[in-house]
């Protein structure tokens, strides 16, 4: 029997790594991710999990240790956040380019300066182009589910890419919610033992991480890009297989009450749940609105996104990150690119908010929808607008 327990997302992710029976964990504690390595260290020390726990001196070392473990075919897990992900950055590219299916949970945190341990998506956006499969979670159940799913998809022989599972620092990482934990035998059915086809082995020597001179590097990158995009099929199949066993079905792009809606709001992560309440409130007043929760961030689900927004007149995109000097938030910029060549597309409006742990309430999302529609009607001088900033914001122009 599965059981329903109260868990913060950090402990839910640690529980998923335990049930996935990981072989190696190498992690360095950083707020707000600390509870993940802390809990896993405890599990290993108590004998609840038979794994090598490698305490390292930095995040750069954490992921480097994971590379070594993955190279010998170990099921490998790590977690970090904010500055830790930044310090890890160099190795993040290496993991995906060497095709090691490491799973890493990120408790999304703002980037310094000013120093902030609180949540936003700046850390995630800084690793957008690193070639990791990336998903965002709305709640603690999803933090558990996506972590388990990440091993299944990353390790698939047709994929062999590392996977990042993003969930919001504090808003999820430190908040207790009900989480349904499956039985171990269900997990084992979903996630068979990992057989890495190129595991280092003294009996069959091979070279991992050779260099690539100019006559090979470009071919290597194109091969990686083609394989990465192709992984979307397995990602979707993995969502279905997960649903068939555990009863919860996920999708790259998840519409909420969008049927016939003239105005759509698009959000990612835990704020989607708050935004859903704003949608409900507005729907109750008879307004024609709906929500898109973007789950799969990389590889970007172009077809699914176009399909989900094709009938809308207005698409409001909400970002928890600023792309300095750019067209708005990174999500907004991506959505606009996805729709640019479409003959019929909704008008796009961009908002940035929820930076560095600033809360976004239901009322704030109602404002975003109202103001978004107003911008479409009357226009705005700014490229994007902000939510909840004290003082009138001007000067965000092309």
């Amino acid at each position, binding site marked *: 029997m599965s059981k329903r327990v109260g868990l913060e997302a950090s402990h839910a992710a640690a529980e998923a790594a335990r049930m996935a029976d990981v072989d190696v964990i190498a992690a360095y504690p950083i707020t707000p991710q600390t509870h993940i390595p802390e809990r896993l260290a405890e599990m290993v020390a108590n004998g609840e999990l038979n794994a090598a726990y490698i305490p390292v001196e930095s995040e750069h070392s954490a992921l480097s240790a994971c590379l070594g473990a993955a190279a010998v075919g170990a099921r490998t897990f790590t977690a970090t956040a904010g500055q830790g992900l930044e310090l890890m950055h160099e190795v993040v590219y290496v993991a995906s*380019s060497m095709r090691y299916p490491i799973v890493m949970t990120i408790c999304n945190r703002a980037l310094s300066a000013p120093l902030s341990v609180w949540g936003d998506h700046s850390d995630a956006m800084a690793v957008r182009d690193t070639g990791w499969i990336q998903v965002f979670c709305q709640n603690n159940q999803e933090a558990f589910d996506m972590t388990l799913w990440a091993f299944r998809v990353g390790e698939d022989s047709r994929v062999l890419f590392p996977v990042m599972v993003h969930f919001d620092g504090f808003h999820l990482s430190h908040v207790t919610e009900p989480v349904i934990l499956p039985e171990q035998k269900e997990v084992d059915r979903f996630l068979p033992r990992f057989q890495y086809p190129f595991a280092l082995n003294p009996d069959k020597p091979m070279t991992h991480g050779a260099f690539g001179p100019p006559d*090979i590097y470009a071919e290597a990158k194109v091969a990686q890009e083609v394989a990465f995009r192709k992984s979307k099929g397995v990602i979707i199949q993995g969502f279905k297989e997960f649903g068939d066993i555990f009863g919860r079905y996920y999708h790259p792009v998840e519409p909420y009450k969008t049927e016939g809606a003239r105005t759509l709001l698009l959000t990612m992560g835990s704020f989607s749940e708050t935004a859903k309440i704003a949608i409900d409130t507005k729907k109750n007043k008879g307004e024609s609105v709906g929500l898109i929760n973007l789950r799969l961030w990389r590889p970007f689900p172009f077809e699914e996104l176009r399909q989900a927004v094709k009938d809308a007149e207005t698409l409001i995109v909400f970002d928890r990150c600023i792309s300095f000097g750019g067209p708005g938030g990174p999500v907004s910029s991506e959505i606009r690119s996805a729709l640019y060549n479409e003959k019929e597309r909704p008008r796009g409006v961009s908002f940035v908010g929820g930076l560095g742990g600033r809360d976004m309430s239901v009322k704030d999302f109602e404002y975003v929808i109202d103001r978004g529609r107003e911008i479409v009607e009357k226009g705005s001088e700014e490229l994007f607008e902000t939510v909840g900033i004290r003082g009138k914001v001007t000067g965000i122009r092309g």
Partner: protein
Amino acid sequence: MTEKRLKTGSDFTWKDMEVGNIVTEVGNASVRKTGDWRTKRPILDREKCTKCALCWIYCPDAAIKPSEEGYYESDLYYCKGCGICASICPAGAITMIEEEEK
């Protein structure tokens, strides 16, 4: 020494890349064409060569092979043209000439 040659240049497409660019065979550096890195190439004067094999010993990358007649000559597919063989040759039998020269 293996006579296998890897596909290079226009023969080699992105589809030939192994997953993760992993090299699945060991000791295969010499099957990869590095001869096109050279700016100078070693020329052996058989009249002067004493077959002492010092060039073979000193070559840092195993580009020199003994021939059937007992001479030691460079594998120009692999030789990067560093010139150590020419420097070490006690008989002055090896000279480095510009790649452009015939």
